[in-house]
């Protein structure tokens, strides 16, 4: 047991004593993250972020959505943001790209086309994801787009064999914190709907720290010298889905994005179907 855990346990113990000895054992049961047989926090379960930071990781007020027919339902909510220490430290050219992305986000945002969201965006979406925690590997299965990743816990030197939309994840434990280094990204994913972006030099250091039985404090440090002048961090809580029948469902959104991507090539395509923009590949017409 780490010093941190001992200290935390003592604080809780003292608090419980001051209330009543009867509630003590209950409090222990309720306030600890479950543990694996080898004494690690067991994050296995269904998790989801709350809030609106998936719209914009920086603070922003509410605004109208892109389609008037969707009215209030399609409007974009306000958010306090999740980025630490002020404005994102873009390089001048990367900031210019962000402005282009933001102005034209519906056409350019890869999520709209059901592309895998990348990291940390996948953890921030209004969809749950499930952690299946083995000893040597941890699987994160995301409802959105059936995206997934394997975190290699037993191979710290395993270099990424190919570039990945979801990156290449290697994990280790620092006390009770699961630390995951994610590298070997494709350059196409974004961080949010507001056009915040990165290059293929992206490296994400994630930290998953238990806070009670049903919450994980999640932090992601972003390192990308091609896009940012310094590393920066974002953090937000991940909450356990508490419904008795909560389970991962399917959101295989490919079929919901096909008309957007391929509709203009159908034989009897309506005149308003145009070639998609922001594609990761091109074909010759």
């Amino acid at each position, binding site marked *: 047991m780490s010093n941190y855990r001992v200290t935390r346990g003592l604080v809780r113990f003292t608090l419980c004593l001051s209330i009543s000895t009867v509630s003590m054992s209950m409090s222990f049961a309720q306030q600890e993250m479950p543990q*694996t*047989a*080898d004494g690690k926090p*067991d994050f*296995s*379960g269904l998790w989801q972020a709350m809030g609106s930071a998936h719209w914009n990781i920086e603070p922003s007020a509410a605004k109208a959505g892109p389609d008037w027919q969707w009215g209030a339902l399609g409007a974009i909510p306000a958010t306090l943001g999740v980025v630490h220490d002020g404005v994102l430290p873009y390089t001048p050219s990367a900031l210019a790209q962000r402005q282009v992305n933001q102005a034209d986000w519906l056409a350019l945002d890869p999520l709209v086309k*059901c*592309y*895998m969201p990348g990291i940390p965006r996948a953890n921030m979406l209004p969809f749950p994801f*499930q*952690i*299946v*925690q*083995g*000893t*040597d*590997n*941890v*699987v994160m*299965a995301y409802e959105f*787009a*059936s*995206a*997934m990743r*394997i975190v290699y816990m037993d191979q710290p030197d*395993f270099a990424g*064999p*190919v570039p*990945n*939309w*979801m990156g290449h994840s290697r994990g280790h434990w620092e006390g009770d914190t699961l630390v995951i280094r994610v590298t070997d990204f*494709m350059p*196409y994913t974004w961080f949010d709907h507001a056009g915040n972006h990165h290059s293929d030099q992206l490296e994400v250091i994630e930290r998953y720290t238990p806070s009670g039985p049903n919450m994980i404090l999640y932090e992601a440090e972003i390192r990308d010298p091609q896009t940012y002048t310094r590393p920066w961090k974002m953090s937000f809580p991940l909450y356990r889905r508490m419904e008795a*029948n909560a*389970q*991962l*469902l*399917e959101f*295989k959104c*490919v*079929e919901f994005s*096909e008309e957007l*991507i*391929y*509709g203009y*090539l*159908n*034989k*009897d395509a309506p005149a308003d179907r145009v070639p998609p923009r922001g594609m*990761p*590949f*091109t*074909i010759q*017409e």
Partner: protein
Amino acid sequence: MKTRYQQGSTQSFRNQQPSALRVTALALTLGMLISTHANAQQPGWQPPLTQDGHPDLQGVWANNSSTPLERPEIFGNRAELTDEEFRDLLQQAEEVRASGGDALFGDGFLNAVITGEVRSYDPSTGNYDSSWMVDRNMENRTSLIIDPPNGRLPPMTEEGRARAQARASGRLSPTDTYLGRPLQERCITYGMPYIMAGYNSYYQIVQSNTSVAIIQEMIHDVRVIPIGDKPPLDERVKLWHGDSRGWYEGNTLVVETKNFSGQSLFRGAGENRTFIERYTRVADDVLEYQFTVEDPTTWETPWTAVINYTASEDPIFEYACHEGNYALMGILSGARAAERAGQVPDAPIDAE
């Protein structure tokens, strides 16, 4: 390429007398190329356990079995090849492999050896050549289906036949719209189960105390199977891959899956099927995968098959199918160009 055996010639299988010399040379040649696995559990071998005391099924597993789903009729009720036939099969396999011709996926392999027709044709995407093939797991079995005893799918019910016919007649043109392309090409799903031994036919299993993740490399699909008493999903929620519940029976993980969507087809069965899987590790490097499909609206009886998965040293790769699907765009774009040039469109595709 034509192999020595002509179609239907069981005699040539039976009467072939390979010389000792040839068998030895063959064994040396094949040693590094083709793996063979017995499916019987080795005596005294105990399966490893996870830290939670469950049978440890974890690892990357390959479905590269050369055995066809249904038994070729020339074998009748025989479930296994004789030693002699098996030696012969190994040599034929090596000739197929070395020919550098077409790729033979799934059932194509043994069928090619039997018929001498070493040509594959993928009606949807055109042909793959042998560079797409990995070494196949050669077994002396004649079919993956173990029940019914003739190794073949049971007869379809009248309802099942009518459904198949309606589906065939309602098929869309393959190039008028993306909806006319198979689900695999659209990167929606390779199905559940995906049992074809081909390329990317790899799975990874990761176990926690309360759940099992079965990762399928094709389209990065993961089935997360809760272990224990979780109540079933409401029947109104239908899923491409169904809703799974799992439990352990001795050394075996049993998974029952229901709630399939009507679009999620398996050999003609749709939303009415119950799919039961049994995963048992029978050696360090062999995972026996047994499944039973029950659907009284499609077949007269349930049927059961066994595939022996073999351990893979390699990791699962990210198969970003949809993200790189320039082929679908190219197919439709090509069809529009062909129409402008006054060419005739293709016939519908028969693909489940």
